[in-house]
Every structure is written in C-alpha cells, then in structure tokens.
C-alpha cells in the first residue's frame, strides 16, 4: 500500500486533510481518505502523516498488503508502536502472515514547534465516555494540563447519516458546554471503504469490532495533533473480561507518537461502576446515548429503549435508583416481558454484565426481572448454534484457536474478503 499526495483543502463549511491510498497486493481500487472538521477548528486540523499511517495500517494488514509506504518522515516511536500493535493483531488473527513492513523516513527529533499540553477524549455520550470524563474531572484539577478540554465526536465510523449526526452534535453541545469541554465534530471516511463488506460478514462488523476501531480513533486524534497532546479512548471491556478487541490496552497506547499520547482509559472499572459514576454525577443522565440503532434517532430521542444495550443500561440505572431520574430513555421502568422479548445475549462479556445485575436487582426487590435475566442467561448457555459456530466456539474456548490456525495453514486461507488478489 502506498499513501501519497497528502494535502490540506478548504471546502464549503469545513476544512479537510486527505491522502491518496493505492493498494499494491490486492485489487482494491485506489481511494482518497480524509479527515474534516468545521471551519471553527480549521487551525487544529493538521495534515499529519501519522493520521493516515495509523488509519491505513490495520486495513493494509487485514487485506494482506506486504508493505505500507508513506513518503514523509514519521515518528520512530509511532513506527515502533505500530510494529507492536500489528504484532498483537497478527498473533490474534493472522498468525501465519508475514509482518507488514512500514516504509518511511524516521524523524530524528520531535517537531520543533511543540503543541502546549492539552487533553482530549472521544466523546460519544455513552456510559464509557462519560465515565472517562467523570474520572478525569475527579482526579485531575481543572488547571492541570491533562484535564480534558476537548471532546472529539466522529462521523463516518459507526454512523453514516449526516442528518442524524447533526442531531447528535446538537444534543451533546449543551452538555459539553456545561461540563467545560469543547465539542469537536470530525468527519472521516477511513472506515467507509470497508464498511459494507464488514456489515455482510458472518460476525457482523467483525473487522471494526475486533481489529480496527482503536486505530481509527487514534488516527483521528493524530489529525488533531496540532491541538492535542494526549487523547483518551474509553475502554469498552473491563479487565475481568478482556478478550481480543479492536480497542484494547495492548493496542491503543501503541498508536502514540512522541508528540501525541493515546490513552486507553477505564479498563479497571466495570460497566456497573462506570454507570454508577455517571448516575451520581447527574448532569449526563439527561444526555445519555447508548443505543446503536442510530437510524431510529429523532430530535431528543437517542435511545430506543428496546435493544439489548438500552435494556442493559436501563436495568443498571434501575438498580442504582437512577432510571426514574432520566428522560434519556422512553420508559422509566423495565418489564420482564421486555427482557424476555428483546434481550439476546451474544457474548461472554455481555453475559457477565447481566450476571452482575442479578444481585442488585434482587436487592431492590425486582424478582420478576431477576427471573427474566436468568432465563436470558440460560438461553445464552443453551443456544443451539450452527455446526460451524459450534466448531468455532469450541476452537476459541478450548483449543486456543488452533483449529482455525491449522485450517489456515493447510488451506492458506484466513478471514479475508474474497477479492484478495493473492488467492
């Protein structure tokens, strides 16, 4: 893969930095990758080669590119970090693939003009990101350079509807102001070329979930290295249930450079602990956005109240005595019928979240909900997967993935799209 033609542009209401990406070892078409932001933040956006490098290295590896060439100087700390991050990804997913070579000139110094220390974070309005902000507010005095000042809100990753994104921006602006952060919308297409294929994958969005999300966020952060020196990515999982995931404490910090540190924040806090932090804070309760069903968003309504994520969050708030204090969800109660009808537990981490709700639900006297949760947990354990899923599950859980590795070795296949030219 070659990344070339790095450039800055001014568009109607936005500033953009972009580059041309040319694939060399697969027949994917050449495309442009970009990062954009509103004119108000034009001075903060930089045509930083690190942004494009980090945005492209994981897709390059995923599609079997042998090298990634960028014809600019890059930070050797980032180069070293990408070697480590891709080694972890290779160990998890591509054990028989050669390491991808990153070809670039190495910077011998840090940039001459240093950005004053300034901290940002990725701000979705969900429990994890609010918890990151809350922890930061509790531990860092406001005058400390690492007290978070900016919240980055990204369009083009999990969301692709501009109108809906604007609704989200409008809804988060007041709470950002109240909490003392500047909301910075970022528009990017770094995931778009892979999104459709990823959605069609048997494990929907597997590439995003398990490989790319941390790098994608870090790439956006690097595009703002003129403004920020440290950026936090809120952890999704907690250390008790740390499986492989595309945003991970073993990955995200390695997307740092000498002048921009990427932090993976909150790994030591459970989902319940984070929800408690947020609930006790108060302000964010009215602005929570946990629902991934973004196509159902309407002005003022960002949680459907019917998906597994919403229900799990509502249950947690219920146990904390906070569900009736928020208008973020369509209802201020949860019924057992809703749980039985709508909750489908799909992995061990989610299962653990529900396990941890049983005790607190019993303590508040909601035996109806305890029974419903236990039934859904039992269904997860008793689910009848396809024979392929059974083999895969057995391999993942008991064989350390060795069956898949053996298959890959024998048949020279791995999880790649069918348009891989080398096959």
């Amino acid at each position, binding site marked *: 893969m070659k990344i070339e033609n790095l450039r800055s542009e001014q568009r109607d209401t936005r500033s953009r930095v972009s580059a041309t990406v040319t694939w060399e070892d697969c027949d994917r078409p050449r495309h442009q990758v970009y990062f954009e932001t509103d004119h108000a933040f034009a001075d903060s956006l930089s045509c930083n080669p690190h942004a494009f490098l980090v945005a492209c290295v994981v897709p390059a590896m995923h599609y079997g590119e042998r090298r990634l060439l960028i014809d600019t100087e890059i930070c*050797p700390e980032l180069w070293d970090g990408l070697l480590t991050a891709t080694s972890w990804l290779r160990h*998890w997913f591509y054990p028989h693939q050669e390491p991808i070579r990153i070809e670039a000139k190495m*910077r011998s110094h840090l940039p001459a003009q240093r950005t004053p220390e300034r901290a940002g974070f990725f701000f979705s309005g969900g429990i994890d990101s609010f918890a990151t902000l809350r922890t930061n507010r509790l531990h*860092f005095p406001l005058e*400390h*350079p690492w007290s978070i000042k900016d919240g980055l809100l990204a369009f083009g990753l999990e969301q692709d509807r501009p109108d809906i994104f604007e609704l989200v921006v409008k809804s988060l602006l007041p709470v950002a102001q109240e909490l003392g952060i500047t909301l910075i919308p970022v528009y990017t297409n770094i995931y778009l070329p892979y999104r459709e294929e990823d959605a069609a994958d048997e494990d929907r969005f597997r590439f995003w979930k398990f490989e790319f999300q941390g790098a994608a966020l870090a790439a956006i952060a690097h595009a703002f290295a003129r403004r920020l020196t440290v950026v936090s990515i809120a952890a999704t999982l907690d250390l008790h249930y740390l499986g492989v995931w595309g945003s991970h404490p*073993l990955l995200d910090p390695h997307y740092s450079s000498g002048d921009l540190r990427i932090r993976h924040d909150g790994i030591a806090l459970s989902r319940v602990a984070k929800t408690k932090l947020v609930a006790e804070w108060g302000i964010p309760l009215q602005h929570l956005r946990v629902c991934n069903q973004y196509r159902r968003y309407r002005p003022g309504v960002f949680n459907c109240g019917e998906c597994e994520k919403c229900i799990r969050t509502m249950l947690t708030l219920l146990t904390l005595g906070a569900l009736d204090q928020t208008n973020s969800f369509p209802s201020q109660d949860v019924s057992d019928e809703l749980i039985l009808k709508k909750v489908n537990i799909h992995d061990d981490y989610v299962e653990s979240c529900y396990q941890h709700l049983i005790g607190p639900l019993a303590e508040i006297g909601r035996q109806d909900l305890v029974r419903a949760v236990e039934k859904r947990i039992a269904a997860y354990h008793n689910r009848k997967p396809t024979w392929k899923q059974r083999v895969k599950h057995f391999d993942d*859980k008991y064989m350390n993935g*060795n069956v898949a590795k053996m298959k890959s070795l024998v048949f020279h296949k791995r999880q790649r799209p069918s348009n891989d030219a080398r096959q």
Partner: protein
Amino acid sequence: MRIETLRSEGNGTRARVAATVTWEDCDRPVQEVYFETEADFSDSLSCNPHAFLVGCILPALNNREKRLFIDAEICPELRDGLFTAMSWIRHWYYEPNRELVSIEAKARSTLPATTRPQRTGLFFSGGIDSLAALRANRLHFPMTHPRSIKDGILIYGQNIESDTRPETFQRAVRALSDVAQDAQIRLVPIYTNIRSLDEERRLFDMSLAAILSAVAHALAGRLTGVSISSSDSIPGLSLLDITFAKPYGSHPLLDPNYSSVDLRVWHDAMTLSRLDKTRLVADWDVALQNIKVCGPNWPGDNCGQCEKCVRTMLALLALDVLKDTKAFPGNDVSEQLLSGVGIKRPISRVSYTVDEDYLELVPLLEKRGRHDLIRIIKWKLSRYRGDSEGWRKRLQHLDVRFLNGNLARLKKSLFG
C-alpha cells in the same frame, strides 16, 4: 501505611533520597526506605514522592493496608495508573474481593516546574533481554531522538535471591560499563532497600515492574522515560488465563500504569522472541562478552550450569557464537550438561514459554548437526509433558497445550 519525612541526604560518595514508612494495619516495624546513587549522579536523584509511592504500593496491598498516605502532591495520572495496576495485580494474584489500597495524597495541579530535556533510560541487567532491547532501540531510534536510550540503570538491592555481595555488584558495574560505553549510554548504578518492606519472593514476582519504576521515578531529575525490557514475547504475554498460570509482574498490561505525566514507563521489545534477542546480542561483540544471565549468581559470573545459563549457551551455540564468548565457563553444551538441566513442568507461565525458547532452537541446532542436543531437548520436553509416562500424562499435555487447561478444570468441577 504512611510515607513521611521524605528527604535527601548525602555522605560524600553517594547521594540518597529516603522516606519513613509506617505500617498501620499490620505489625510490621517502621522502616526507612531509600534510593542511592554515586555522587556523579547526585543531580539526577530526586526526592520524588512518586518513587516511594510506587515502591510501597504493592507491599501495602500484599499486607492489606487500607490506605497509603503520602504527604506530598502526586501526579493524578500516576494515581489513576496505580489503581489500574493494583486492579490487574488483584485479578491475577489475589482473591477478587481484596480491598485495593486507597491512595491518600494531594493531586498536583500543574506539571513539574523544571523543563529538563527529554531523556530515556533502560533497566540494564546485562541479560539477553536488556541487551537486546538496547540494540533494538539503536536500530529503531536515531541517536538524536528523545526516545533513543541514553542511560542504563543497574540496580543493587532488587535481586536479593542472587549474589548480593557489594564487590560482585561493583565488578558488574565495571564489566557493563564497557558495554555501556560502546553503546554510548551512561551506566547509572542505583542502590535501594525497597525490598526490605516485604521480602516475600511471590511479592517480588508480582512487583518487579513496580520496583523498577520506583527507581525510575527516583531518577526523574534526569529521565523522562524508561524502558523495561520484556522477559517474554507476545505469544507468552498473551497467556492470561489465571487459572492456568499467573502473568509475571512485568507485563505490557501493567508496566505503563506506573507512568506519571512527566515520566513514561514502557514495556519494551515484546515483539522479539528469545532467539531474536539472542541473535541481536550475538552480533554485538562487547555485549556478547559481558552477558549476565545466571539466576543464582547475578550480577556475578555465569555459572554455566543452571537452566538459564544452559539455555542461553544453547542459543549462542545454535547461532555459532558460543565459542566466541568468554561470558560462560565453557564453549560448548554437552549432552551431559543439557541432560542435567531441570526444565520446570508447565504449571507456570514462565515454564510455558521456556518450552518455546528451546523449541525455536531446534532448526538451527539441526543445521549445526547437533542431533545429540535435539534428542535431549525433545526428550526433556516430552518427559515433563508426559509422553513417556502413559496416557494420563499425554492427556495432561494435550490439555495444557491445546485446551488451555480446561479439561483439568472440568474434571475438578465434576469430581472435586
């Protein structure tokens, strides 16, 4: 636990920073802990509360202290990191409901006033891991880059199980100074009694990175970053099934949490296997002549008999450089020598990857015609895996190697 009376002292030949540690929830006596260095580096030693905080936190956790109070401002990033580090340590080593130590200290609201230039150090034992990390750093970072290693830190007082004679340490300083000079780093000796807080070996295994990081924080007057060389590679580090084996107290999930805003701690060189690292050292003559790996004798002369020495000698033999080094008493590995080495059963994480360290040598040994040694390696590994001891041992090996120990767990849950 209270950490008080932080102070700087000097006796002419050495500079020292010290603090008084008072235990509150166990009946351990009041102790003085210190970090010392030679007078040459007295300007580099700082009475940094972070050094004592990081050095004391895991002994406090191990002895169930409810709090750790330090009457100084501390970096909020370090406080956060210590909460995460303790959470990992509890998850790996202790019961799930063990209370974490509550850190009571004022939070710094600004960065430290001094604007020292960025400077990176490396914990430098003279072992394969640290020599290779230094070599790799030279390959990856231009000398002018702040991340290019400039100092090698050698600690006296950390490995109390090995040779603790001061004269042995001084000999090591002299020997490793040659390597340091060649690599254009300063060798900085540090003396500490931090382990006197709790000398339990198990605690040392889980707190290695904390001890090293504490020393680094004591040198925050000089360093802005420090590398801890990984003692394993990614496949070994990824084994986090705590029912099977405990991760070591220096781990990429752990070490960076001992960082503050003004001092970064990196877990370095984890992408290299043991053979990769040995290969890097093999190509560097002055390092090759001064390798220090011996378990019982470190930092003294390598005994050439212990498992670590023999494994290293075997790797050097496979790379055809054992004959070129004076670092070991012999220039060959005989069948008898290799047969006499005990390779631990795979019940600990370390043993598991030692297994891989031997296996990756087999192709090279084959090229060298050392089928005698290959036979011994395979026999030893198969012996502790049980191939020659019946179907039960074979099943146990299968369980360990391919089933993550789950068969043993299933049996335990069914039959107790």
